[in-house]
């Protein structure tokens, strides 16, 4: 039988601040969902997507659609990262140009 003993386990040093940052990232509504203009999608279709995905009423959906059309983009939601990613996927699956970014 060997008399050698195993060396004590080496603890991996924790990266300072990471867990706290991740928790803050997950719960803070700091992620903007931005829809960008394109020449192909119909205005009525964009209104429909905003109502269906984001739950907007007609007036709010129309206002954001017109902002996209006239100004080139519209901030349609500021959410948690998880929720923003969900909107990102859903809106893009409908064929609209959409990005998400952390608000400054």
């Amino acid at each position, binding site marked *: 039988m060997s008399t050698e003993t195993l060396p004590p386990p080496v603890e991996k040093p924790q990266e300072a601040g990471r867990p706290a940052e991740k928790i803050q990232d997950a719960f803070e509504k700091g992620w903007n969902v931005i829809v960008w203009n394109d*020449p192909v999608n119909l205005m009525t279709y964009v209104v429909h997507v905003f109502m269906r995905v984001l739950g907007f009423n*007609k007036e709010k959906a129309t206002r954001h659609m017109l902002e996209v059309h006239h100004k080139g983009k519209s901030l349609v939601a500021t959410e948690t990262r998880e929720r923003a990613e969900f909107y990102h996927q859903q809106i893009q699956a409908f064929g609209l*140009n959409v990005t998400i970014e952390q608000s400054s």
Partner: protein
Amino acid sequence: MHAVKRKGRLTLTVQAGERRLLRRVLEAIIRNYKTPPEALPSPVSQVWYSTAGCRSARMSDEQTGEWIASLRAIRQSRLRLLQRFARQLKSTGKGNSELRMNTDSAAAFMTALNDHRLFLAARHNLGEAEINWFYLDSAESLTPARRKALFEIGALAFAIGVLLGALDPVAASWDE
């Protein structure tokens, strides 16, 4: 072409010429939905599977790959419906044809038609100027392939308008 919604179900009625166009479009969509993103023409892939949002969200390469796969899965989930409609439109008669669907299927169908508009615009490099030419003589200056694509983009806009009018009349009648 007209659509009627009754008791949660939508019936789309198409004439013979519209049926031929829709069947050809559906066959193209099915083929393109089955094609891996990297095998699509680059401008199309950049629209259908845009990763601009992944970059702005600072996603890793692995997360971006998963993102593209999830978008492809959403498109492929429409395949069975589109294949059924394509079969139903194979009739060669001169009379009208009907496609019957529930509202979820109608929304998926409409989105697939919209995808084909995006496909054609990207594939044939048709932007705002050309799309606005649809009703103008300027379209005559385009090559036959681009003119055909422009015609299909316009025809599918009409089809989407018809579907949306029945499916979501509130959205379909926005005013400034």
